[in-house]
């Protein structure tokens, strides 16, 4: 172990003198966390709205006002007909068109079943989904307001059925609560895997490995000496990131933070070990970097942070069984938002433990002191 300590000491000395790498390890992830968390916004404001009011009644007026009073919509145009409004959609002047048909008020008062039409620009499907759900919310609120005066009696009599969604563990579906822990582990994974990937192969390129390989250093000592400094750096990033999540983004921390730390310290061995494995089989930093990118892009895009894994085809979900990022993001959310215990997340934790063991064993095995 004494040898490992000297290797770590050497690694830390080199790191201290490499200002760029040091900044990359200590500061960059935190800047990225703050930037990405604010940028990865799933709330959209100021959607452009075109209104076609064919009723010209006080009831229609009130509905239009309701749209205008939310921060989500901005009434930009009023058109006489649906056909004219469709031109706005085509010209990208409107994200949403609200059509209030003739006799809207009359139907509302008499039959209680008035209809409005919403035309949504589907070019950006995320935006379209949000626009239609916001609009449905506005219409729903409008209806609730009217109900006491007009239709409450009728509803009471008919015993109407209504679905009221309740979002457990994140009652207001705050996207930051959902995204910040995920973004944090994603950024940390990226950075620690990169530095690990570039490390051994850098010694090969510079030639220092030649001198090191004639010493009695054992392969496991060498790999451990490379692993530990970046493992500590990863945990440091995680600590600061959690503080930011707590105090800047007000992410709730329902579960045990020490448990999350313990699991994170196991998880970090996976991207680190994979990076060292890639590094020990590569001959140049360029090669190593491209191989690492190949894995990182798959991990990041299939980790469920940006696209829910449920939307993916079966083969992609099967592939995801070996995506460490998917497991740790899931575990993080469960512990922080839901208060899951070790027993609840035991299966993914065991999977991560297995992966960590596998990639690091491979890295030690594949690192060669002899060639040819």
């Amino acid at each position, binding site marked *: 172990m*004494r040898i490992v300590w000297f290797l770590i000491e*050497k690694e830390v*000395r*080199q790191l201290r003198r490499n200002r760029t790498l040091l900044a990359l390890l200590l500061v960059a992830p935190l800047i990225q966390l703050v930037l990405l968390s604010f940028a990865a916004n799933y709330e959209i404001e100021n959607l452009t709205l075109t209104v076609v009011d064919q009723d010209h009644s006080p009831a229609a007026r009130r509905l239009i006002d309701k749209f205008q009073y939310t921060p989500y919509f901005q009434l930009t145009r009023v058109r006489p007909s649906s056909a004219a409004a469709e031109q706005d959609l085509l010209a990208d002047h409107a994200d949403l068109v609200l059509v209030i048909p003739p006799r809207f008020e009359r139907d509302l008062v008499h039959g209680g079943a008035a209809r409005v039409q919403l035309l949504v620009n589907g070019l950006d499907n995320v935006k379209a989904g949000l626009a239609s759900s916001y609009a449905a919310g506005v219409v729903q609120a409008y209806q609730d307001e009217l109900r006491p005066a007009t239709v409450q009696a009728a509803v009471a009599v008919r015993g109407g059925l209504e679905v009221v969604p309740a979002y457990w563990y994140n009652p207001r579906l705050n996207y930051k609560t959902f995204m910040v822990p995920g973004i944090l582990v994603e950024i940390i994974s990226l950075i620690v895997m990169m530095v690990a990937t570039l490390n051994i192969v850098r010694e090969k390129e510079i030639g220092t490995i030649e*001198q090191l390989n004639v*010493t*009695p250093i054992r392969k496991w000592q060498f790999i451990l000496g490379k692993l530990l400094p970046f493992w500590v750096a990863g945990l440091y990033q995680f600590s600061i990131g959690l503080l930011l999540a707590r105090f800047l983004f007000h992410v709730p921390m329902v579960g045990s933070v020490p448990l999350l730390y313990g699991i994170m310290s196991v998880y970090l061995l996976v991207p680190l070990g994979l990076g060292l494995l890639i590094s020990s089989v590569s001959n140049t930093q360029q090669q190593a970097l491209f191989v690492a990118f190949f894995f990182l892009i798959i991990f990041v895009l299939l980790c469920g942070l940006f696209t829910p894994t449920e939307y993916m085809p079966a083969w992609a979900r099967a592939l995801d069984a070996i995506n460490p990022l998917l497991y740790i993001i899931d575990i993080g959310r469960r512990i922080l938002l839901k208060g899951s215990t070790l027993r609840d997340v035991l299966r993914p934790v065991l999977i991560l433990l297995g992966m960590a063991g596998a990639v690091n064993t491979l890295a030690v095995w594949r690192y060669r*002191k*002899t060639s040819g």
Partner: protein
Amino acid sequence: MPAVELINISKSYGATPAAREVSLTVEAGELFGLIGPDGAGKTTLFRILTTLLLADAGTATVAGHDVVRDFRAIRNVVGYMPGKFSLYQDLTVQENLEFFAAVFRTTVAENYDLVRDIYEQLAPFKNRRAGALSGGMKQKLALCCALIHKPTVLLLDEPTTGVDAVSRQEFWHMLGTLKARGITIVVSTPYMDEAALCERVALLQEGQVLRVDTPDALRQSYPWPLYAVRAAHMHPLLQDLRAYPDTHSCYAFGESAHLSLAHAAPDAAARLTAYLTGKGHAPVVVAPVAATIEDTFMDLLAQQQPAA
């Protein structure tokens, strides 16, 4: 027991042979030179001896340990200086030395007497980063790091390449001191003048050993009458010498041309002077010289590849 022994070692990189059935024996305490141009296979032999490379065929031992079976034992008894500077450029002189002492489970203090002479020259720069040292200083530091675990065999791959003449001289002086302490030294160099400083040398060419002998024996084995010829213009001089009927070989050697004749004759120098003067060369100086190792090496090369 020989300190280093290679028996029929062969190694190819793809279709290119780097070592062809090389057999060499270096006795304990010897200062042995591997001499040959770039690409002769010197580095390949060092990498096989330091367990960094596996030979395709043949066996080798260092300090009695087989390079394949006992590779771990070899790493403890060998000091290696790779041809390319391989210390940490971003660590200081002192940090490099301490690091290599530590990975060999020793300390600088423990073996300081071995490196004292060399390290004292480096001491003023001990807090300078290795990358900021001059070529000669780098080479001294590398030698210190290769010595810090008290190896019994030192393997030095072209330690003086790219180093100034004064530092080269100092370096060879240091090797003499180390040899006096009983350390076996195998050193490679492309410089023929350095070959003369070894006890025995192996002349290598294209992965093959042409000859192994002492520098004196190599010089004396030169079979042809040899003359140093000088004139004002080297290029036409060489051309005319090559056209001379009795010429065996002729090549530039510093400021003069070395000419070997096919037959010895008492009046050879006088006849040659007359020939060159007749060709318009002036002033012509022809003097018999003793062969150097380089002359022997050139001659051996010529035997290998029949002149085109």
